[in-house]
């Protein structure tokens, strides 16, 4: 274990996250983990880490860090303006930094959540099988809280790269987010408004956090006589719950049970998109069947495998192949 960063300024909300905490959902312990699993995974792969390694999740803007030991970094996800000693650095590729360097991750030009991966992964104690921070339960990460000025960050074991790596074709985040969703599990409470839900245009509100993305737009009416709520049942990321006020909330990673009815559920490969939505962005839901959703999952898994192969190639090789940058 080596201490690699001292936190000069923490950014608006920077937390340690990994692939999530799935082992204690039955004990009310939220999944937690990176809201954008794709960007998190690519950040780790860029610096040569396994999928289990922890990264820093940065919201709207990132931290200022003093580098205490030579290491490789990658910043992915939201298009954050970042620099090393005042010289601007690219996202979605690895950058070597050395002792005494100052890394400043600024505002996101597009997207909402950036991921900073470091060789060996951010090293914090494993709590209930994960290093991710659960803010509501004050668990994991650094004392269960966001980064603070003065924190020191250590990394796990891992070799520095022989050559830089980059993702040739990174995602672009617009101000319109389309989310594929499967109706249910309580769509019968909304039969009359289901079509409207899938045609409506919603906006992300500023009252969104890691627990859920709250939407404004047309009020989603429930059927005459349909219950306002249900006996609490397990909830999952992507569930679109509709409280009695008719304003949908897309549940994210800090909830395990709920008593609100759920009109539809965003499919798992599209959760990365909602993670990158900013307040004011437009959200539309596209109806898919469960079979279509599973086909998308398999396609996403194939694409990830392809990306893994590309990431293993050094930048010079990608340039020779003439792949898009």
């Amino acid at each position, binding site marked *: 274990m080596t201490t690699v960063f001292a936190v000069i300024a923490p950014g608006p909300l920077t937390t340690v996250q990994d692939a999530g905490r799935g082992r*204690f959902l*039955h004990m009310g312990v939220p999944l937690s983990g990176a809201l954008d699993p794709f960007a998190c995974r690519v950040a780790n792969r860029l610096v040569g880490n396994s999928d289990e390694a922890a990264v820093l999740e940065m919201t709207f803007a990132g931290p200022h860090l003093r580098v205490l030991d030579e290491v490789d970094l990658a910043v992915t996800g939201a298009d954050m303006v970042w620099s090393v000693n005042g010289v601007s650095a690219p996202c979605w590729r690895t950058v070597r930094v050395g002792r005494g360097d100052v890394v400043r991750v600024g505002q996101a030009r597009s997207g909402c959540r950036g991921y900073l991966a470091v060789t060996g992964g951010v090293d914090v104690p494993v*709590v209930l099988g994960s290093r991710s921070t659960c803010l509501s*339960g004050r668990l994991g990460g650094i004392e269960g809280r966001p980064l603070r000025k003065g924190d020191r960050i250590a990394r796990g074991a891992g070799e520095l790269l022989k050559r830089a790596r980059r993702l040739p074709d990174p995602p672009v985040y617009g101000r319109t987010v389309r989310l594929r969703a499967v109706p249910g599990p309580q769509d019968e409470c909304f039969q009359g408004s289901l079509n409207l839900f899938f045609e409506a245009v919603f906006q992300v509100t500023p009252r969104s956090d890691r627990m859920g993305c709250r939407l404004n737009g047309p009020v989603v009416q429930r059927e005459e006589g349909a219950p306002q709520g249900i*006996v609490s*049942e*397990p909830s*999952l990321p992507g569930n679109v719950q509709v409280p009695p006020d008719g304003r949908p909330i897309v549940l994210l990673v800090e909830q395990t049970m709920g008593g609100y009815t759920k009109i539809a*559920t965003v499919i*798992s490969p599209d959760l990365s998109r909602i993670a990158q939505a900013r307040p004011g962005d437009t959200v539309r839901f596209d109806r898919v069947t469960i079979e279509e959703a599973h086909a998308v999952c398999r396609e996403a898994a194939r694409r990830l495998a392809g990306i893994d192969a590309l990431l293993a190639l050094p930048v010079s090789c990608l340039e020779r192949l003439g792949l898009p940058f």
Partner: protein
Amino acid sequence: MLYETPRFRFSGDRGLLIEYGEGVDLSVNEKVHRMTALLQRALPDGVEAVIPGYCSMCILYDPCRTGPAALERHVLGLENAQDRREAAPARTVRIPVCYGGEFGPDIGFVAAGHGLSEEEVILLHTERSYPIYAIGFAPGFCYLGGLDERLHTPRLETPRTRVPAGSIGIADDQTGAYALETPGGWRIIGRTPLRLFVPERPDPFLYRAGDRIRFSPISQEKFDAIAVGDQA
């Protein structure tokens, strides 16, 4: 009310919800925990987690490795097999509680609302064991059913921002325990010195859904003694 056959619903592309009945009903809830335990004993291929609720459970699966049809068959197979198996007996977990005073700031409200003395509230709260219907809202927070009618008390109008770990509360017809310090709106009547949640332990929680909990009253001195011992 228990359904004759379970009902299956999609909770997105990774969740299969299985409903065993309706409402807050002990026989339905017992069925949920029996099936959850059976599934957790040998997780089918591609299943990542099984999460029990009040009258349903959710199977979280990897759609690249399994699918709802296979899982439905598996669950129905367990259903048919389980009559022949002996259900594991529910454990009763004993939890000592120091009632009233600084540990139970709302015990006076609960007592006054029902024309009881604080001693009577303690007696009514400790004379029976409670089934754990569900665990959720916050890590390790347990929802217990079967509270004596004379103790039913509405939630706080404004939830507290911090309820200390170990607090024992009442909300309407339920009682429960806070395993972690969190915000909360339940009426707090006491606190246990036991650490209900210790992340470093192999089994980090003292209980699981489906167990029963029995509270026993202790003095402040006993509270301090146990608290010191439990930290060690």
